[in-house]
């Protein structure tokens, strides 16, 4: 199996899976779910077997079509994209196990549509991860938006549809209104859109135009949820929890920050940006989002909305780390993508587990729930600690690198932001943990529930374990991202 073929396969496999799921779905739900798991597992196998080649320094690429001169659909695997793809494919397996438990446990409608679109979304994620130029990335970015819209609107009642419209409206409007013009502008001045180490804009653009173009990118990539284009993320919380867990904690939002990292590192170039003072606003915008979103999260009473605002803050962490423009912080940004993915998916799994078992969605209802659902709440605790950045969880590693990067450049804005936001994170997560474990239930629940279905428990235990494992064994990830031609030049 050549690596070119593997790249294409990783995009086509989920699509083929989607077709299979659609055919079997109506009459054979068991077969459908088996097919989902099989597709997820084989995708993971295909993606992960690319890893050795990458570690050996290879950069396999494949060109599919040339639309206009210099405008191609092209894929290239590099460490950052590899990490993203490996993460998404691995978590898809776990999430599929979880989905089966959740969708059956809650008797959701349109389950076939759910699994089909999930597979399509994953195909788009692979396309984004392996995109060799901005145009290819943009195509899959839009596919991801369109394929997740029905997942958000899954419930189909009027309130859900309104939220889903907000979701689609913001993501499409920003991508067509800002992101696309930015791409075209880049193409105009640079004559290419290929992701090139060191960037393509150096010497082609200077002065305030750089800051403006960066703004078009940062706010056009709405999936990264930098304020004020963050509103779609809380709106997306009306979706079933597996969607929130994999897509709105991992795939979609990570696609956003991933795109921003790609743009900063491979389009602008880190060194070019650090010489250009008009781009400095990015750090401040990200820092502001971190703090503001954390404060908003403090005031949430709905568990999933709290997690959504926490996600917004954590995403801007990554953006801020990128904006520090130091190699160490770029590594930190990359690891934070993985760390936050494991932690946040665990938290969402826990929220969905609580909902499935007890139908509870509000924070104040969670008193004493730790005794009824020990596995769930243990996983929740690990996830929350990772968000705060407490060892032995993955969040600690990434925060370490980001802090190291900010000290390297004496960037006090970043340092203060990290400290304040850590305090805020602790303020909204620790009370939940405390109430859940150490308080008694005020009123006994109407249904005397215990743990959620087994599939759910397996899934959230797995992701919680991954959160800890990433703390203990982070060397392979570090090796991958600190490769030459990777994050640092």
């Amino acid at each position: 199996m050549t690596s070119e073929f593997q790249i294409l396969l990783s995009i086509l496999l989920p699509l083929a899976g989607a077709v299979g799921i659609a055919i079997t779905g109506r009459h054979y739900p068991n077969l459908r779910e088996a097919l989902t798991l099989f597709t997820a597992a084989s995708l993971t196998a295909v993606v992960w077997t690319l890893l050795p080649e990458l570690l050996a320094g290879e950069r396999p690429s494949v060109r599919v079509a040339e639309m206009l001169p210099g405008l191609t659909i092209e894929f290239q695997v590099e460490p950052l994209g590899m990490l993203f793809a490996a993460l998404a494919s691995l978590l898809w397996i776990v999430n599929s196990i979880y989905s089966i438990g959740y969708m059956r446990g809650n008797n959701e409608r349109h389950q076939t549509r759910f699994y089909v679109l999930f597979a399509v979304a994953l195909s788009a994620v692979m396309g984004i991860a392996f995109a060799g130029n901005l145009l290819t990335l943009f195509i899959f970015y839009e596919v991801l938006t369109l394929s997740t819209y029905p997942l958000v609107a899954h419930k189909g009642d009027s309130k859900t549809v309104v939220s889903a419209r907000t979701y689609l409206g913001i993501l499409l409007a920003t991508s067509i209104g800002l992101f696309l013009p930015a791409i075209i502008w880049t193409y105009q001045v640079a004559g290419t859109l290929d992701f090139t180490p060191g960037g393509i804009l150096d010497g082609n653009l200077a002065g305030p135009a750089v800051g403006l173009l960066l703004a078009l990118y940062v706010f056009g990539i709405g999936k990264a949820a930098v304020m004020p284009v963050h509103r779609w993320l809380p709106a997306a919380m009306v979706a079933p929890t597996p969607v929130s867990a994999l897509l709105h904690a991992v795939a979609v939002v990570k696609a956003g920050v991933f795109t921003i990292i790609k743009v900063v590192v491979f389009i602008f170039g880190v060194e070019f940006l650090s010489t250009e003072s008009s781009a400095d606003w990015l750090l401040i915008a990200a820092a502001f989002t971190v703090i503001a979103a954390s404060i908003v999260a403090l005031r949430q009473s709905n568990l999933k909305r709290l997690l959504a605002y926490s996600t917004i803050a954590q995403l801007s962490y990554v953006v801020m780390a990128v904006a520090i423009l130091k190699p160490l912080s770029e590594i930190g940004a990359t690891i934070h993508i993985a760390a936050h993915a494991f932690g946040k998916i665990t938290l969402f799994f826990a929220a969905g587990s609580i909902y499935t078992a007890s139908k509870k969605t509000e924070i104040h209802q969670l008193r004493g729930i730790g005794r009824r659902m020990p596995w769930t709440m243990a996983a929740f605790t690990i996830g929350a600690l990772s968000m705060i950045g407490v060892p032995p969880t993955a969040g600690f590693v990434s925060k370490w690198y980001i802090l190291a990067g900010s000290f390297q450049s004496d960037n006090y804005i970043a340092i203060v932001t990290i400290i304040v936001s850590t305090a805020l994170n602790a303020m909204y997560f620790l009370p939940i943990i405390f109430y859940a474990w150490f308080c008694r239930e005020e009123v006994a629940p109407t249904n005397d529930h215990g743990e959620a279905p087994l599939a759910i428990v397996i899934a959230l235990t797995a992701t919680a374990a991954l959160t800890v494992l990433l703390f203990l064994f982070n060397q392979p990830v570090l090796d991958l991202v600190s490769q030459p031609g990777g994050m640092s030049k």
Partner: protein
Amino acid sequence: MILTDHLPALQVVVPMLIAPLVVLMRVRGLPWAVATVTSLMAFAIAVGLTNTVLDSYSVTYEMGSWRAPYGIELHVTSFSALLLLIVTGASTLTLVAGKQSIDTEIGHDRQPLFYAAWLLALSGFTGIIVTGDAFNIFVFMEIASLASYVIIAAGSDRRVLPAVFKYLIMGTIGATFYLIGIGLIYMMTGTLNLADMEARIHEVGELRPILVAAGFITLGLALKAAVFPLHAWLPHSYTYAPHIVTAFLAACSTKVALYVLLRFDFLVFQQNLSTHEVQFTVFLMPLAVFAILIASGVAVFERNLKGLLAYSSLAQVGYILLGASLVSMPGLTAGLMHMFNHALAKGALFLAVACLGMRFTRLELVNLSGVARQMPWTMAAFVLAGLSLIGVPGTAGFISKWMLISAALQEGALGVALVAIIVVSSLLAVVYIWRVIELAYFGDPPEAGQSVNEAPVWLLVGTWVAALMNIYFGIIPSLPLSLASESAASLLQHLP
């Protein structure tokens, strides 16, 4: 004498001669079969001509061996080849796919006449495209228009009649304006041959009649092309015409008028009128901008599905004109590409509408609530084509929008404003296409007992062929691109 030498003439003559024969065919199904085969032949001829043009730049043919400029000269360039492909392709695909749709809307006793008129329209359109003679264009234009009125009026809804009457009045006024313009030019130059005209206007001392002629011709053709604000005839005609007719005409009729407009403005007047750029940047560009914004805005609030798509067509005419009004190589190429790509998208959309029309008598949006569950293939094709209309990457619509935006960006501050307008109208397109999609996919079916089936297979196949072409030409646009850029180069080669 080799048959292939006569392709330019055959392109027009074949459908024209077969049309009266079709009238005589009283066997059920035969008129359709003959019309389809004829249209297929026309398409094959168009493909043959395109191949020749791609090899050798252009083909000229002297009718009856009379030497130009005295005789009528047929002139096939890459620009004409592009249009020929659009027209004959649209006609063939809609005819092949549309038999059942036409059968449900038009009685068998009237079908021979209907198909005859269809072939005449086809012949008229191709005639306009291949001829190099100004008056000849007028004649073919009226053949095409009269035949179009007839096939539009075949619609079963009675509201089609006032609509087509309005079209007839406005279309005739447009054609007459064109005729006045030709008369004035003939007065000053003594020629009707387009190529000859260009050379001779050079020698004319007094340019005022030529200026007046340019005004009349531009206005008349703008009427035919439904350039805002001269578009009043189009929405209702498209809404109430038989579905297949709408698919055919929406793909090509306004574009043919634009083709003549561009040919006149760029080949005949360009070098001769010092105020030529003014005509575009001061006069046509604002019209294009208004068309884009206002028509997209109206489409957002339109309640009838076909009406919505008709207003969207008006906006797309604006895009084509906007590209041309930049009077630059990239702009013109983008406009011509959009001609091709919009024909693909709108053809597919209206074919999907024809599928819906097989199951619904009224195509108000509210009637289509939840239809995607019952007609999944139809709606999936609709979504694909709709994405192309919006200009989502990976579809044909994206290519032309990309080219249009990058052409506009070369125009400095004005260009940035134009880009903003294109972006806004793209977002409006998202809204109006999404209204349909959301209703079809997430709306509840009106009554539980009422269930409809998927459209007939043949119609679906046609719809999907058109929808997939949007993807194909979105990824591999080299054929229309080479034709469009070559035409743009030839239109601009006279630029002083």
